């Protein structure tokens, strides 16, 4: 990979000289299912946005921004997209070449970029957008910044375009229907340091890595920015996707992956490989030596040792690779202020962006400027656009912000406002249309009422039918007379895909492609229609019932597959009570976050007394956590799970409960002590047996730690003490020895060690583990001997306890001698110096 990088550096230099044309990749597949059921029949990029296909907006913008070569990646309905582009005049434009790249099996943006990488078509910096982007920004400035940065720092691989938006919990939701976005940006360099778009990954708080503040003294944290999904990328981005074959989603995997240097795993494997080869060489020699000198048995034991050591080295290399930040790739942001950039992500942003186009925010990409194949329309008062050839009844009232396409007729007393009506539609009399998007060749009969609906090509709405807010009628649906289409419902000629695919897919909607298991999709449109027809004839009768008398189409059930929250993404404006709900949620979240906030120990003090009373939930959390750790540990003991795996598991628990290593140390220690106690109870308590056990155990220990004598001496000493206690201490000791490494892992500093002591104190006073109370000093000493606790930690604990209540002090008193001994020892040391 290093070699590759070097080559690339060379390429860049060349690029400067030969001036590679500016390239762009348009992903003509959103790999999402937000626009279902419409996208089952037509790809999203070809859906009309104010009477022009979305991809035309993107292409027109790229052309005007100086892009010379565009690669359109299409997957779902790729035939339709290529057909459209071939028939359009985008092919054969001078200085603007459009090439399509088809794929049939890509399921994510990651797959798409990997495929493009294999084609070797990208030679320099490129613009990465999806085919549903509407923008009028100039790329010159952003591109210049990108190149300048790139020249200075070859790790600056990407520039993300962002835009100011209003800071509020509900702005993102009410405007573009997207989740709120938290970003941390270095104010001096504009480097992106943190990106969080799924609000619930870490409730209540944004957690930034402390290391971020090392490089720069200030970070600005934003909730008031909007991601435009326009990226200026270096060619490395493609190779990164190839290297990290698990990257699927542009933001969720790629951006976050780079930010957290997730890429370590790649190196990790490499390091492992090298280590392994090395070890194999060494041990081959070693084994040969062994076989010469020792007998077969010893050889076997040697093998065991090899395995153990190998395991250790492997984990060490794992840990090493965890710590190394190798990649160091950086993402930067470019903020645009006056120009427009947005992406049609769902029905709500479709609605918002349509309105923005009508209100001319996207100039010159507006209906009355012929930026591409769209018909000439004239702008009239109140933001009304009319095509030249429309049949408008005198009594029809056309309200503000409405677009009426070519060849459409509107009947008597019909009211249209805030809507877009496509070409060749026939609107009857006494129809009211508000906030609707009616595409081409739609027939709406007399007396219908349509509010905030999307009506696709060829739909027939029979007289007297009502579309409630948020309804979506897919292609060629027929709504029967007087039928009321309920709010937020979607009607299609295709049946809703069954649960088996929707369940999983909808949950991770963004990962799945638009191609679902309906066979007609991948086939040609003609075939599709045929199939539809046959399908229709089969289900005509049934469908008719669903959408009224004389209607055809299936109503997709709304509540299925986690889409209860249709309203979030619908074209219909969010109702007042929904808004109130969001606000309430925000407040609830606030409450939670405040309680979360209390997890942050209110002071640097370690004592549990300094924690507030108000955080019962948090307490609960820790209790759950402790239980889980205990269970994990027990399982590890019974199933002989490796220590490293235990560490991994406990780490993942820690992350999911969002606790610190201190908590882990405490919980693990608790689990160990408890297990030791339980085994002591259950064991027969016979000295002889335990001796056997112990000696067996020693053999195990010796193989594992290579430290024989001191422990044996100490433990045999212990054995001579009173039987039960001795038993217990012995169990503890063996437990600690066995899991020394795991425990040590969680004790990086004195604070954690003190936590362990405190935990132990707590155990001693607990009823179920009362037996330890008499053994406090002994076990403390044991822990000291086993290097679990350092004397500093013990002394600090003792000094902290000095000020405590008498009752609190009883363990300090018990350990007094030991502490005194430690004190003296340390003094001696210092005097010796």
């Amino acid at each position, binding site marked *: 990979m290093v070699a590759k990088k070097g080559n690339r550096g060379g390429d860049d230099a060349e690029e400067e000289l030969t001036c590679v044309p500016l390239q762009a990749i348009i992903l003509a597949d959103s790999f999402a299912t937000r626009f279902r059921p419409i996208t089952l029949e037509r790809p999203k990029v070809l859906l009309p946005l104010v009477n022009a296909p979305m991809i035309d907006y993107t292409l027109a913008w790229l052309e005007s921004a100086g892009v010379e070569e565009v690669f359109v990646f299409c997957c779902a309905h790729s035939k339709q997209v290529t057909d459209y582009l071939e028939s359009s005049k985008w092919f054969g434009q001078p200085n603007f070449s459009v090439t399509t790249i088809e794929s049939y099996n890509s399921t994510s943006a990651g797959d798409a970029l990997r495929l493009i990488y294999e084609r070797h078509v990208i030679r320099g910096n490129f613009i990465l957008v999806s085919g549903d982007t509407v923008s009028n920004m100039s790329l010159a400035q952003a591109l210049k910044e990108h190149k300048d940065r790139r020249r200075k720092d070859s790790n600056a691989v990407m520039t993300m375009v962002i835009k100011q938006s209003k800071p509020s919990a509900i702005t993102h939701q009410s405007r573009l229907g997207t989740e709120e976005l938290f970003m*941390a940006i270095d104010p001096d360099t504009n480097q992106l340091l943190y990106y969080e778009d799924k609000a619930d990954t870490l409730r209540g708080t944004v957690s930034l890595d402390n290391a971020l503040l090392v490089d720069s003294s200030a970070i600005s944290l934003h909730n008031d920015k909007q991601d435009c999904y326009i990226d200026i990328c270096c060619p490395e981005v493609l190779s990164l996707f190839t290297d990290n074959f698990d990257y699927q989603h542009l933001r969720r995997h790629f951006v976050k992956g780079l930010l957290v240097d997730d890429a370590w795993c790649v190196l990790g494997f490499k390091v492992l490989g090298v280590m392994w080869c090395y070890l194999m060489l060494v041990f081959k020699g070693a084994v040969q030596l062994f076989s010469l000198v020792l007998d077969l048995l010893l050889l076997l034991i040697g093998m065991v040792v090899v395995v153990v050591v190998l395991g250790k080295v492997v984990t060490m290399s794992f840990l090493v690779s965890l710590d190394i930040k190798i990649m160091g790739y950086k993402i930067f942001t470019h903020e645009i202020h006056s120009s427009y950039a947005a992406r049609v992500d769902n029905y709500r942003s479709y609605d918002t962006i349509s309105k923005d186009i009508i209100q001319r925010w996207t100039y010159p990409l507006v209906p009355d400027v012929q930026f591409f194949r769209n018909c000439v329309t004239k702008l009239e008062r109140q933001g009304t656009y009319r095509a030249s050839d429309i049949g408008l009844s005198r009594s029809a009232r056309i309200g503000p912000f409405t677009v009426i396409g070519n060849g459409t007729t509107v009947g008597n007393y019909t009211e249209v406002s805030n809507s877009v009506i496509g070409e060749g539609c026939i609107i009857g009399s006494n129809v009211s249309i508000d906030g609707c998007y009616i595409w081409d060749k739609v027939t709406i009969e007399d007396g219908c009422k349509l509010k905030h609906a999307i009506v696709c090509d060829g739909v027939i709405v029979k007289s007297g039918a009502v579309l409630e807010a948020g309804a979506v009628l897919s292609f060629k649906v027929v709504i029967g007379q007087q039928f009321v289409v309920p709010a937020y419902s979607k009607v299609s000629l295709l049946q809703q895909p069954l649960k088996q695919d929707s369940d999983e897919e909808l949950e991770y909607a963004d990962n799945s492609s638009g191609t679902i298991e309906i066979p007609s999709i991948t086939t040609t449109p003609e075939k599709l229609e045929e199939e539809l027809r046959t399908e229709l004839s089969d289900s005509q009768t049934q469908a008719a019932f669903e959408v009224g008398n004389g209607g055809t189409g299936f109503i997709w059930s709304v509540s299925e597959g986690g889409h209860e929250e249709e309203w979030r993404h619908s074209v219909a404006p969010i109702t007042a009570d929904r808004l109130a709900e969001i606000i309430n949620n925000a407040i609830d979240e606030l409450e939670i976050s405040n309680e979360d906030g209390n997890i942050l120990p209110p002071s640097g003090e370690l004592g549990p007394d300094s924690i507030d009373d108000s955080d019962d939930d948090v307490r609960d959390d820790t209790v759950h956590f402790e239980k889980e750790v205990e269970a994990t540990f027990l399982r590890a003991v019974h199933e002989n799970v490796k220590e490293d795996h235990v560490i991994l598991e406990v780490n993942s628990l820690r992350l999911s409960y969002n606790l610190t290593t201190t908590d882990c140390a405490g919980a693990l220690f608790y689990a160990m002590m408890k297990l030791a106690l339980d085994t002591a109870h259950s064991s027969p308590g016979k000295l002889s047996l335990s001796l056997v056990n112990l000696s067996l155990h020693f053999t195990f220990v010796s193989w594992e730690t290579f430290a024989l004598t001191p422990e044996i001496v100490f433990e045999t000493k212990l054995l001579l003490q009173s039987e039960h206690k001795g038993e217990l201490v012995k169990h503890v000791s063996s437990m600690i020895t066995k899991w020394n490494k795991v425990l040590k892992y969680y004790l990086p500093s004195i604070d954690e060690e003190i936590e362990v002591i405190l935990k132990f104190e707590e155990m001693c006073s607990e009823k179920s583990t009362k037996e330890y109370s008499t053994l406090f000093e002994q076990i403390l000493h044991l822990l000291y001997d086993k290097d679990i606790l350092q004397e500093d930690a013990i002394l600090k604990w003792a000094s902290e306890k000095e000020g405590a209540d008498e009752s609190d002090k009883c363990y300090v008193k018990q350990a007094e001698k030991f502490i005194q001994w430690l004190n003296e020892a340390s003094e001696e040391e210092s005097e010796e110096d």
Partner: protein
Amino acid sequence: MDFQVIVLAGGFSKTLVPLVSKDVPKALLPVANRPVLSYVLELLEQNDLKNAIVVVEGETAALLISSWISSTFIDRLNVEVTAVPEDVGTAGALRAIDHRLTAKDILVVSGDLVSEIPPGAVAAAHRRHDAVVTAMLCSVPVSGPSDSGSSGAKDKAKKTGRYNIVGLDPTKQFLLHIAAGAEVDKDIRVQKSILRAVGQMEIRADLMDAHMYAFNRSVLQDVLNQKETFQSLRRDLLPYLVRSQLRSELLSNGAQSEEYGNGKDALQNSKILLSQLLANASTPSFHEIYALGLAGSAPISRKTHKCCVYIANKSKYCARLNSIQAFSDINRDVVGDANHLSGYTFSAHNNIIHSAAVLGSKTTVGPQCMVGEGSQMGDKCSVKKSVIGRHCRIGSNVKIVNSVVMNHVTIGDGCSIQGSIICSNVQLQERAVLRDCQVGAGFVVTAGSEYKGESLAKKEKQ
């Protein structure tokens, strides 16, 4: 009686052992030959804040301090010295003198602050926003003997000082996040709710909480009473107030803070207006917007309170004497770069040699040095960037560099002292070599001994 000033003078701080001793509590440690507390008191005097309560931990320390104050500030300030039990923490100290707090707002200043930033500015920022707390933030001081290529910094090998992590709003007037103490080294966890309300937050690590706060008195008392576990203002109380600023619990318990609650309700509108006018802001602060709820939604009454900051100008000196390192740094600065604070007039050589000090022949005292009253130095001595106290007897051929020598110290011939702190009544016998050491009061360093980076003190406690 608008602002009541509380000076928290601490007691015998453990972190400053061996500099502090039974006779010298932290507040009386000398900075350029006068107690550090005098810098705070003079700052107050200059700002016309003549009434102050000095809170001291422990009776003995309180006696020492009050006798010093009464002798020094007798007709200049009206200072009361109050003793509180030891180890109650800063919050505990305020809790202990709860009944003494009467004014509407309380200004809490740490007694170890050496600064030229007027408390009035903090008070004004506090009043302007009608905040519950206003904290002063200053730039992180340069730690260690940074200049003149001294070797002292090597041993300490300190990482770049980071004291607090602070979140500020874009106007830099409000405090949105603060991490202090041990939390500074953990991950930064910022509440989304506050971020949502503000939209943009700047997180800084180059600012330090200077421990000068203006508090709303009733709020302060409420919180101290409700949260009995809070020990430290810096680590507990301030973060708590900052955390809960959009979900204030403070003003809801009307019974406890009746006067305040009523006033708030009745005057709310006018107050908002007033504070806006004062802040020269055409838009209300995010607190108010948040409290009023979102336009078009049912108004939900929300309690908020404001946590403000006053960020001191970088050029102003501000440091806290809370570590041994800080002690040397401040002494260095007060006779060096920030010498206007010392209150002395410097000679043409940029140093101060008391008229009653006696210097032997060929003895040189470099710039940024100070030699106190009645000190005697032998021949061929060299003093650089150091402070020497009163009535010291220093032999010949002595080198003192980057050090602080307190009062009544005897230094034998041929000693070399570098980067060290020598407390009062210490005796250094001939040819002792000290480097980066702290020598506690009354200690005797034997002839010819060499120490490096050690803390020497008489064993009395252990």
